[in-house]
């Protein structure tokens, strides 16, 4: 499964949801499909996208929050999974695009390439709903189920280690940040 196709498969759902993504390839791919004011791309701060999603989900329980994470990023903040599980925001769906790689910095393999299972780690951290998706159909099914369940879910989507040719986009970091804050202020 290509991550770009997985993003396309859920894009119509993301259109009016609060979305927080990690840096680099994921951010550039989602922007290539179409940027919206309700999408925030946390460039550079590895590991903290899920923590940001938690901060939003806890303070805005009325909004559905989707975090689009990566294997390398999650591995850098495994403790964050325990905090997510502990507070169990039912309005948060945590998608981890696991390409077994630090794709955005040259594609060096992560520990998921040698057997580390992030869905199992999330489950062991206390996340009650977890799923691993290897095909587009499985991914779409797991995503729809997570939304319908109205409960914290970590979905590990196994994707190919391919991405866009460049990661810097037209959108400036601060423009994205302030527009996202204004979006959250009016909804």
């Amino acid at each position: 499964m290509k991550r770009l196709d997985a993003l396309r498969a859920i894009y119509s759902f993301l259109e009016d949801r609060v979305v927080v993504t990690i840096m680099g390839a994921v951010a550039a791919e989602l922007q290539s499909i179409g940027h919206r004011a309700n999408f925030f791309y946390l460039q550079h701060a590895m590991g903290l996208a899920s923590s940001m999603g938690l901060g939003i989900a806890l303070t805005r329980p009325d909004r559905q929050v989707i975090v689009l994470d990566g294997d390398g990023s999650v591995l850098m903040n495994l403790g964050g999974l325990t905090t997510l599980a502990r507070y169990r925001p039912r309005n948060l769906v945590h998608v981890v695009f696991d390409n077994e790689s630090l794709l955005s910095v040259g594609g060096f393999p992560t520990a998921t390439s040698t057997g580390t299972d992030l869905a199992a780690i999330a489950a062991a951290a206390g996340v009650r709903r977890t799923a691993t998706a290897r095909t587009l159909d499985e991914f779409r099914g797991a995503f729809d189920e997570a939304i319908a369940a109205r409960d914290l879910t970590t979905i590990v989507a196994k994707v190919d280690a391919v991405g866009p040719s460049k990661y810097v986009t037209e959108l400036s970091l601060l423009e994205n940040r302030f527009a996202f804050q204004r979006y959250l202020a009016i909804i």
Partner: protein
Amino acid sequence: MSPVSTIHSRLIYDALKACHIRLLSALPETWLVHLVRMADEDPEMTLVRLAKEEEGVGISAGAHLAGVKSAMLMQNHGFLASINGIVSCAQLYRIPLLMLVSYRGEFGERDPWQTEGGAVTEDLLRALRIPFSYLDHPDHVARRIAKAQTLALAANKPVALLLCRDLMWEEGG
């Protein structure tokens, strides 16, 4: 009874409430026990207990963008453990962070393990250009907390208040 000052902890907690803080992230240490308990017992406060302090930067960033005022409670070694998050999330994205940092390892410290962190705390804050002040006397607690938050919000940047032994600890020496 613990020599951590309940009265001064209450003063700090009330000052945070007066600043409309509604979310507190915390990784406890001895000096912070009362503050964490007060947050836990307060139905108006969302207390987020962390596994590592750096998570608190992301949580506060999310809360801020969502329109909720928050603060972080940690010891100075937790500040050390959060530095990349402070730089790469809060400073890069202009997020106001109100950090209450217990200042272990300063004059009067008996625990040998606190002393290295104590000796580098202020230099690191300066190197990061994080404005900071001290909470070392009950008379200025409320004012300094309010002013620190005002600056953080005006500058859209992290600020720090160092919780000092003279305020937090009741035992002489």
